[in-house]
C-alpha cells in the first residue's frame, strides 16, 4: 500500500512545488522584461495618428526616457508585441484596451472629453439610408472579427461589407479607386483627410457611441507610478501628437 502511494505522493509534492514556483514567478515576469530593457518598464503603443509610427516612437522615446517605448502602426504587429513582448503598460484607444481586458490607468482627454465621435465619409454625397450591401473601409484596429463588431456598433448596422486597411492614410485610396462606398474614421482625422484630397468629401455623424481617446493601461502594478508619472509629464506638443491635450485618472 505504502509502496503504491509513495510515487503518487512524490508526484503530488512535485506538482505542488511546480504550482508554487509558477505562482511565484508569474507576477515577476514583467519585471524580468523590464530588466531586460535596461531596467526600464516596457511600454507598447498602438494608435492610428496623424503621423507615422516611427515618428511617434522617436518622439515618445525622447520624451519618456524612463520607459522603453515601442510603437506599432499595425494591429498584427501590436498583437505579436503583446504576445511576445510582455509589456508593463499598453497605450491605445479604449476599445483596443477593452478587447484585451485591460483597464485604463490614465485616460487621455481633448477639450475636456475622454472620447470622440467617428464619422462616415463618402464622395459627393453623404452615405444616407441603409448600408445593406455597401462597402465600408476602416482601419484594422481589432482584427477581422473585432473590427467588424466595432464597426457594427458604430454604424448600428450589420449587413455591410467591411474593407480593413493597415494604416489611416490607406483609407483615401479606397475612395479614390471607388473600392469602398464610404470610410469610417475618427472626427479628429477628418481635417487631415480634407487637406490631402480634392475629392468632394461629405460626412455623416455615426449613431454609435463616441469612442474613447488614447489611454494608458498599466499591466504591471510594480511600475505603475513611473509609467503614470512619465505620461503625465508629457509636454503639450507630444500630447497633441497622441491626439489629446490632458490626462485624467479614471
Amino acid at each position, binding site marked *: 500500500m505504502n509502496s503504491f502511494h509513495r510515487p503518487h505522493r512524490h508526484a503530488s509534492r512535485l506538482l505542488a512545488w511546480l504550482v508554487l514556483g509558477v505562482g511565484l514567478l508569474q507576477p515577476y515576469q514583467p519585471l524580468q522584461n523590464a530588466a531586460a530593457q535596461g531596467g526600464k518598464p516596457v511600454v507598447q503603443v498602438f494608435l492610428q495618428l496623424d503621423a*507615422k509610427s516611427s515618428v511617434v516612437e522617436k518622439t515618445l522615446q525622447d520624451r519618456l526616457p524612463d520607459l522603453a517605448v515601442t510603437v506599432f502602426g499595425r494591429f498584427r504587429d501590436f498583437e505579436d508585441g503583446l504576445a511576445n513582448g510582455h509589456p508593463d503598460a499598453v497605450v491605445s484607444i479604449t476599445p483596443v484596451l477593452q478587447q484585451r481586458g485591460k483597464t485604463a490607468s490614465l485616460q487621455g482627454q481633448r477639450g475636456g472629453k475622454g472620447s470622440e465621435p467617428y464619422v462616415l465619409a463618402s464622395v459627393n454625397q453623404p452615405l444616407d439610408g441603409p448600408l445593406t450591401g455597401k462597402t465600408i473601409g476602416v482601419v*484594422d484596429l481589432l482584427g477581422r472579427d473585432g473590427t467588424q463588431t466595432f464597426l457594427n456598433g458604430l454604424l448600428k448596422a450589420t449587413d455591410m*461589407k467591411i474593407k480593413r486597411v*493597415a494604416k489611416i492614410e490607406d483609407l483615401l485610396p479606397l475612395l479614390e*479607386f471607388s473600392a469602398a462606398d464610404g470610410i469610417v474614421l475618427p472626427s479628429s482625422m477628418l481635417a487631415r483627410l480634407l487637406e*490631402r*484630397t480634392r475629392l468632394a468629401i461629405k460626412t455623416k455623424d455615426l449613431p454609435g457611441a463616441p469612442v474613447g481617446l488614447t489611454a494608458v493601461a498599466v499591466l504591471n502594478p510594480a511600475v505603475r507610478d513611473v509609467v503614470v508619472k512619465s505620461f503625465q509629464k508629457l509636454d503639450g506638443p507630444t500630447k497633441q501628437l497622441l491626439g489629446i491635450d490632458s490626462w485624467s485618472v479614471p
Partner: protein
Amino acid sequence: MNGGNNMTSRIAWLLGLLLYLAACATFDDEGGPAPAKLTPVVIVDPPTRPGAPTLLLAMPTSPNFVEVRKGLLSEVQKNFNVSTFAVGPETKATDLAAAIEATKPACVVLMNNTTIALYRQVQAAAPTAPMPPAILMMASFLEEVQTHIRRSTGIAYEVPGVTAFVHLRSVITTPINRVGVIYRPAFGKFVERQKVLAAKENVEIVPLSVANDVTAAGLRDAIHKLAKDKKVDAIWMLNDNALVRDQEFIDEAWRAETADAKLPLIVGVSNFVEPNSPLGTLAIVPDHEALGLQAANLIFDLSDNGWQVESHAVELPLSVRTVVDVKLVQANFGLQTDALKHIDKALE
C-alpha cells in the same frame, strides 16, 4: 496580332524584371536605400488544421514576397490551411500542377509574372479541367495578364499615379496640377487608366509617347518638351526598363534634364532617391505587408461569395511607403509644414 502580343509579352517581362528589382529593394536601418537582397528565406507553413480549406501560395522566396506572405498569413491562418510552394528558376509547370493536385486548394495565390506564366501553362495543358480560383499578385500588367488566366482576379502591383501625386502634394509646397509622363506605346492603356484616376484628384496627366527604342537624347528631348512646352508641374517616371535601362542612360537623360528643369520627379524605385546624387524627389513603393492584408481581405470576400472570382475586378494596391529626398525638396520645391511626420524615409 501575334507580333503585338509578343511585344506586349516582352515588355511585360522587362517590366516584370524592373518590378522584381523594385520588390527586392529594401530600406536599411540607416535611412538610406539598401542594396537588393535576393537571399531566399526558409519558409515554414503553420500546422495543418483538419477540415479547414487550403490556400496554396506559389511564390518566390525573396524577402519582399515573404513580407507579403507574412501579412497574408497572419490574417488567414485561423480560417485556412496554408501551403507554400516556392517558385525558383528551375520550377516547371508540372511541379506547380503537382502541388495543386497534392493540396487540392480552395484558392491559389500566385505571386510574380514567372509564377503566373507557369500557372498559365498548367491551365493550357488541361483546357477543360476545373481550376481552383486564382489570385494574382506582384506582377506587371496584371489587368492584361489576368484576362489569360481562367477563374482569376488579383491585385495590381504598380502604384497608381494618383497615389503618388497626392503624396507629393503633401510633401512639397509648389502646386501639382499637371504631371508629365513619358511612355512607350505598350503602356498606352495603363496611362489612360491613370488619367481617369488622377482626374479625381484634379491632376491632369500630360502623356508623351516615345518610341520603343528611344535614345537618351530622345528621352531628354521628351523631358525638355514636357517641362518647357507643356509646362508640367512634375514628372512621373514609369517603372519601364527601356526608360531606365542602365546608369549611363539615367545620368544622360533623366538626371541631367530633370536637374536642369528643376521639376520634382516621382519614381517607383526607392534606390532612385539619393541625396548624394539627386534624381528622384519622391519614391512611392508598395507596402508589402499591407499588400498581404489586402490579399487576405480579397480571399475572405471571395470565400464569402462562393469564390466568384470572375465578377471581382482586379484591385489596385492601397498601401504604399514613401521615400523623400528632403534636401532636394527644401532646395527646390519647399517642404510642407508637418511633411516629415508623414514620410516613411526622409533622406538628407
